[in-house]
Every structure is written in structure tokens, then in C-alpha cells.
């Protein structure tokens, strides 16, 4: 992945709007936080391959970045995004990483379903 280029990401969001796209949205602390010094329980959520259609999608912020997708009946939102890439399968992958390189948040859009195990 590369550090987010806002113009490039905005162009990729525009290219996918007004049509059903598959969404992967995720945030994670990792599963082992209970073993850390603060002994916090993990907080993790993901949605994979939900279909959404957005009329307006915008990337904002000075970095880390935010993305909002305006749906007909609601919103998709992510904050903390730092890196992006368009995969070989033409998926737009946006992610946030902490200083150790661990993924903290992901927002991904694809015309085709994301691969399942």
C-alpha cells in the first residue's frame, strides 16, 4: 500500500459511485489486547461483502484521512485511514496502520465480491 494521495483516492471513489458495490468495513484492536499491559478486552467489528450504492463519496482530512459514503438510506464512515492501493482485482483498498504496521481500520470497495476463505 502507499500513503494516501487524496486526489487519487477521490478519483477512485468517483469511479465507483452510482452503482452497487461490495463493501468491506472493519476496525480492530487485535485479538490479544487482554494480554497487553492495560488488559483491555478486544474491540473488533467487520462487515464483508455487504452491497451498497453511494451517490456521493468523499475523502477528507489532513491525514490520517476520513471517508464518508452517502447512501440512499444512510452512511458509511471511516476515520484513521493512512494508506491505499488499487488491487490487481480492481478493488479500492483503504486502511489505517499504527506505528507497528498493524492494521487498525479498513474501508474497501469492489465491483465484484471480495474473496471468501
Amino acid at each position, binding site marked *: *500500500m502507499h500513503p494516501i494521495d487524496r486526489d487519487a483516492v477521490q478519483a477512485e471513489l468517483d469511479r465507483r459511485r452510482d452503482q452497487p458495490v461490495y463493501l*468491506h468495513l*472493519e476496525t*480492530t484492536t*487485535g*485479538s*490479544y489486547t*487482554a*494480554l*497487553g*499491559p492495560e488488559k483491555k478486552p478486544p474491540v*473488533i467489528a*467487520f462487515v464483508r461483502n455487504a452491497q451498497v450504492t453511494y451517490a456521493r463519496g468523499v475523502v477528507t482530512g489532513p491525514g490520517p484521512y476520513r471517508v464518508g459514503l452517502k447512501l440512499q438510506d444512510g452512511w458509511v464512515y471511516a476515520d484513521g485511514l493512512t*494508506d491505499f*492501493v488499487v*488491487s490487481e*482485482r480492481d*478493488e479500492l*483498498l483503504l*486502511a489505517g*496502520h499504527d506505528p*507497528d*504496521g*498493524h*492494521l*487498525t481500520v*479498513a474501508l*474497501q470497495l469492489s465491483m465484484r465480491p*471480495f*474473496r*471468501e*476463505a
Partner: protein
Amino acid sequence: MATPTTTGAPYDATPVATPAPFDPAAERGLLVVLPHPDDETFSSGGTMARCADAGVPVTYLCGTYGDMGRRMGRPAFANRESLRDIRERELTEACAVLGAEARMLGLRDKCVEFEDPVEIAERVRAVIEELDPSTVIAFYPGFAVHADHDALGLIAQLAVRSLPAGRRPRLLAVAVGDQEANRAALGEPDVLSDISGTVDRKIEALRAHRSQTEAMFVKWDEDIEDEQGKAFRDRLLGGEKFYLLDPHHVTDYERNRP
């Protein structure tokens, strides 16, 4: 003041039972059943290599591709979509180091506990019937920190339980996390595997799981250790420890599952 008793309470003067040594020469086959690529190396890589050295067939039945992990390498070289194939390749490499054959159950990472345990246990049982191992290694249900670990631990236990008496391999369970809390709840581990002869290969296999272990090794190499790193190094030097789990023992984890 508590009165000393002879029932094995913590204040009892009776010496703690010494764990039995793990003896590869007594094994016919070893099957390791855990959910993620790298669980095998962390928990029992040294024991797997010892068995392979003794000519004992070693198989790792891996539940998922670890595709929902948050570790992407340091610096990150994987992403959410490439992680699956990267971890599969890392597993192949680690198993080559340890002398094991890898097989996949193909479940979705983080979602093992939401599957029907009986259905997955039937698939594990079929592998046990095919390979006829003398020992199965799995996580101890309820003492394995990660929800996938607990869930596949129970599934492995159900698989062994479902076999007819006389066809059941010995079930060795791995407890992870707070070892003192585990000892308080479960007692001393029953089996200790001395991995002093294979610890180098265990470390090589850990390094093969590069996306997951690179951050840890960066800290090791810079001599900066967090609590998890310290606990792991202590465990590495202390050998691999297992609890003998009766397949018919109903754990609290099993009792409380939906």
C-alpha cells in the same frame, strides 16, 4: 490460618507432580489442530520438529488462513486482501522447516465460534480416522485467549470424543495467556516437551511467519520487549507444556456455549 490438608490445595506441602516428558519414540503420528497459520509454531513447533526427527508423521490441520489478522509485517507488506495467500505461503514454509504436512479447513478467520461445532468436528474426525495419530494437539477450550482458539479447541475435543473407545488418540491441550491463572485453574501441565534440540528450528519457523512475527523480532533484535514478548521468550526456554484433556470432560467453555 488455613489448616494444611492432604488434598492438593495450594498450601499443601505435597510436592507438585512433575510433568511427564513428551517422548516422540512413543508416538505413531502427531496431528495438530489449531485455527491460524503460526499457532502451530508458537504452541508446539519444537514438539512437531522432534516428532519429525524421530520419523513420526506430523500433520497440521489449520482452521483458517488467518486472513483477518491485523499484523501486516513491519513495515507493512501485506494488506487485508493479500494476507490470505501470504499467510498460506508462510505456513507452507514454516511446516517445511518443522517437517510437517499442512492441511486447511478453510474456515473464515475470527468466525470459527459461529460455525456449527458438530459439523466441523465431523470433518476433523475424518482426518483423525484417515491419519490415525497417537496424539492430537489442540487449544484448551476456555483457556486459549482468542475466540477462534477456544472454539476450535472444543471442536477438536468433540472430534476425539466422537471416536469409538480404543480408536481415540491422546488429546494434549495448550493453555495460553496468563500461565499463573491457568495453573491456578488447571494445575500443573501434565506433559512437558523439552525442545532444547529443536528450538532453533522453532525460531526459524516463527521467522517464516514473517507477516505475523516481524514486529516481534524487530523488538527482540533491538532488545526491546513488551510483556507479550517477555512471556513468550520465557515459554520458549521452558519447553512446550500440555494438559492431558479427557475427551469426555465437559469444560466450563462447553457448558456455557450457546
